């Protein structure tokens, strides 16, 4: 086998049984790796009626075939499980350093079941894989734990850790690599916490990999790395981080404000944008392994009420979710709130969105101090957010913590009010791109994404922005963001391409510079898949289909491919003011193009057969 190792660590934490299992080459060719391979393994091994936090539930970490290849953008990693937040398919992608290290140690992934009898840590050191007690780390913050684990026994370890939120099973708890890079979405940290697993640490002594065509790959790499490094977008991201164009986003109406009730806030645009972060708080730039873009930030706020030590700084999603979305344009406070979420191990997007929902509920009197332990929730009150709300969520403490730690949709259902003004799809909160300004196609892909509202499941955001041109796969559209025209057609391409990107575990900032023929050449030179363009796109479609089948078996149907009224009502101000999204029209056409059943939401039996999913069709269409 080339590129991939074909070896997966399978751990039953209840029995403390560790095995190395092999995965056949044709499975990789069909499902690529990362979230695609995770979907395949889930389909084959899941206990379908298991609660996401039950011992029987699966938690998987899977590499793509390019991890460790010293290629910009290729060091991401997928975590997948049934989501405790949504009840459906959950996956999350994380950059950083764990993916190459696991590959160098000789494995493509880790598959966990069971529940350890005591707080534990999985140690992977080349061929030696063992469980160790981790009681001394339980209760500690994610950054603190990562610091303690990083250098031990005279070796440098790569770490995946949960914070207290994961230990308390908050359904949107995250997992952090090196205390900085997050598997943020869908609550993978809670699943890890439910298994009593505080950390995974990895150390590899060698860096060798076996490629199908080493010379061909090296030629490709020597072309791609400088191109990615020198790209205009890379320069912008390097200088001012992922929030570099936040200001432009505000003027386009893409940046959500006060729980998606506004699409324009002029003063906030400059206060929170990436160049302001650079000017005020940046101490250094950093990167995921082997990436020349270096979009990550390190910040320090030396004094004042929001002082924080030098350490990981916020990305765009965090800045907006813990800033404008909750009515704040105080960048120092946002940095501190983001750091706190990292330490506690919370997804900043769902945390911010849930607080924003609660602030609006409080304003409407749908929530009162009787529900919040006396805490008054006002827009932009960052002292309360930092001192009371976020710690309460992570600890599930008091009435406020118990309510908001459910996430916005479940919290609204619990109080019986306010579901219409949550911003979510399938229970996953909408990220920091408002489709009314960012692009109507994004509304469609938020809704049909297997994991719920997600801007990185598929490259629709980039397509509507104008950053994609793929004539080889029929993507030559010149899309107008605030229109439904050609969006279903674009989405049909995006779901296949996005499924490839996330199964290859490739960064969407870097991969915009890679052409479709180069994508195919990467798979062929690294893993020897022997693909043509159509084979690659067929694999992407197959993966999208399989995740939909998984969701169907977990109770999701076409009705769940929806967005809440808040996101679909016309914007009240800003560039998109008054414009409606033709959501149902786009969805109907997308269903037609993808051969999806209008009630079940799954592909027709014929479409499944065509995608090589005949056996699976028999399960869902019997």
């Amino acid at each position, binding site marked *: 086998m080339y590129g991939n190792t074909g070896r997966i660590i399978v751990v039953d934490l209840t029995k403390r049984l560790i095995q190395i299992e092999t995965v056949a080459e044709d499975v990789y060719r069909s499902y690529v790796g990362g979230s695609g391979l995770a979907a395949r393994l889930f389909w084959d091994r899941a206990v379908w009626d298991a609660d996401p936090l039950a011992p029987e539930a699966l938690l998987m970490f899977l590499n793509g075939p390019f991890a460790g290849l010293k290629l910009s953008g290729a060091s991401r990693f997928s975590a997948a499980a049934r989501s405790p937040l949504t009840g459906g398919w959950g996956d999350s992608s994380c950059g950083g350093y764990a993916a190459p290290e696991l590959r160098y140690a000789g494995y493509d992934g880790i598959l966990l079941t069971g529940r350890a009898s005591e707080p534990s840590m999985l140690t992977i050191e080349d061929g030696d894989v063992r469980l160790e007690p981790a009681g001394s780390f339980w209760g500690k913050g994610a950054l603190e734990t990562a610091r303690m684990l990083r250098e031990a026994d005279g070796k440098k370890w790569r770490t995946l850790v949960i914070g207290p939120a994961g230990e308390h099973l908050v359904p949107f708890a995250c997992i952090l690599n090196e205390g900085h890079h997050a598997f943020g979405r869908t609550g993978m940290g809670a699943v890890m916490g439910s298994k009593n697993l505080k950390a995974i640490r990895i150390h590899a002594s060698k860096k060798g990999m076996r490629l199908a065509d080493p010379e061909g790959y090296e030629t490709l790499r020597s072309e791609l790395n400088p191109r990615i490094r020198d790209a*205009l977008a890379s*320069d*912008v991201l390097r*200088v*001012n981080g992922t929030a*570099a*164009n936040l*200001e*432009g986003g*505000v*003027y*386009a109406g893409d940046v959500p404000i006060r729980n998606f009730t506004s699409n324009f806030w002029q003063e906030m*645009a400059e206060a929170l944008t990436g*160049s302001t972060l650079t000017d005020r708080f940046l101490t250094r730039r950093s990167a995921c392994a082997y990436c020349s873009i270096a979009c990550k930030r390190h910040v320090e706020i030396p004094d004042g009420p929001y002082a924080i030590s030098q350490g990981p700084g916020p990305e765009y999603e965090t800045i907006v979710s813990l800033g404008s979305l909750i009515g704040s344009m105080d960048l120092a406070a946002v940095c501190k709130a983001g750091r706190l979420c990292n330490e506690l191990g919370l997804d900043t997007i769902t945390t911010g969105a849930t607080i924003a929902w609660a602030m609006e509920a409080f304003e409407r009197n749908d929530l009162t101090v009787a529900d919040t332990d006396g805490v008054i929730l006002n827009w932009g009150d960052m002292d309360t957010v930092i001192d009371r709300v976020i710690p309460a969520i992570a600890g599930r403490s008091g009435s406020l913590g118990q309510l908001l730690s459910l996430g916005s949709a479940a919290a609204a259902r619990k109080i019986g009010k306010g579901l219409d003004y949550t911003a979510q799809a399938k229970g996953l909160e909408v990220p920091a791109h408002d489709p009314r300004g960012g692009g109507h196609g994004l509304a469609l892909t938020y809704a049909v994404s297997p994991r719920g509202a997600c801007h990185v499941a598929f490259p629709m955001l980039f397509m509507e*922005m*104008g*950053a*994609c*041109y793929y004539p080889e796969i029929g993507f030559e559209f*010149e899309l107008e963001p605030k229109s439904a025209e050609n969006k279903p057609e674009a989405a049909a391409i995006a779901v296949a391409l996005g499924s490839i990107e996330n199964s290859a575990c490739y960064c969407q900032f870097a991969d*915009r510079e890679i052409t479709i023929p180069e994508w195919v050449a990467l798979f062929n030179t690294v893993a020897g898949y022997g693909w043509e363009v159509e084979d690659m796109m067929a694999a992407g479609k197959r993966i999208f289909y399989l995740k939909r089948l998984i969701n169907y078996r977990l109770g999701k149907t076409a009705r769940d491919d929806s967005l809440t009224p808040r996101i679909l009502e016309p914007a009240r101000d800003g560039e998109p003011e008054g414009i409606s999204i033709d959501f149902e029209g786009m969805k109907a056409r997308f269903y037609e193009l993808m051969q999806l059943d209008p009630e079940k939401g799954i592909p027709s039996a014929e479409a499944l057969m065509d995608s090589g999913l005949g056996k699976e069709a028999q399960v869902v269409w019997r």
Partner: protein
Amino acid sequence: MEYWKNEEEPIRAFLKLFEESAKDAELSSGLKKVNQLIWFDYTEDGPNCSFWVDCRNGNLAVGPGKPVEEPDMTMSLSADDAHRSWSNKLNPVMAITRKKIRVKGSATGLLKLAPKLKKVAQIYEGVLRELGWEDKILK
């Protein structure tokens, strides 16, 4: 060229656009924040079809041709696409992706001007009227 009779016409319009923009407090302030010497290179439509904007160190100056000093950023495109761009009828990201616009140097500063393109387009329309070129206004 679709919109211009000769290579002098676009430069005349674009220089006037920047002179008028400099009189607008918001745009003037935005341009100064860019803090770069920029060469707008339309030489694919004629050897003299280009101009420069110097907004370094709090100054704001424009002139025809290539700047004497090495520019911090060069933006190369056709004079027709420049016309579409200043009229806010060209998606700059799409134009860069499809190689209609080629950028050399850092565009970080220029990104700050992107939100102001709508206002620039309004001024540009006024400039075209003033020059008696209503027929060039893109609707």
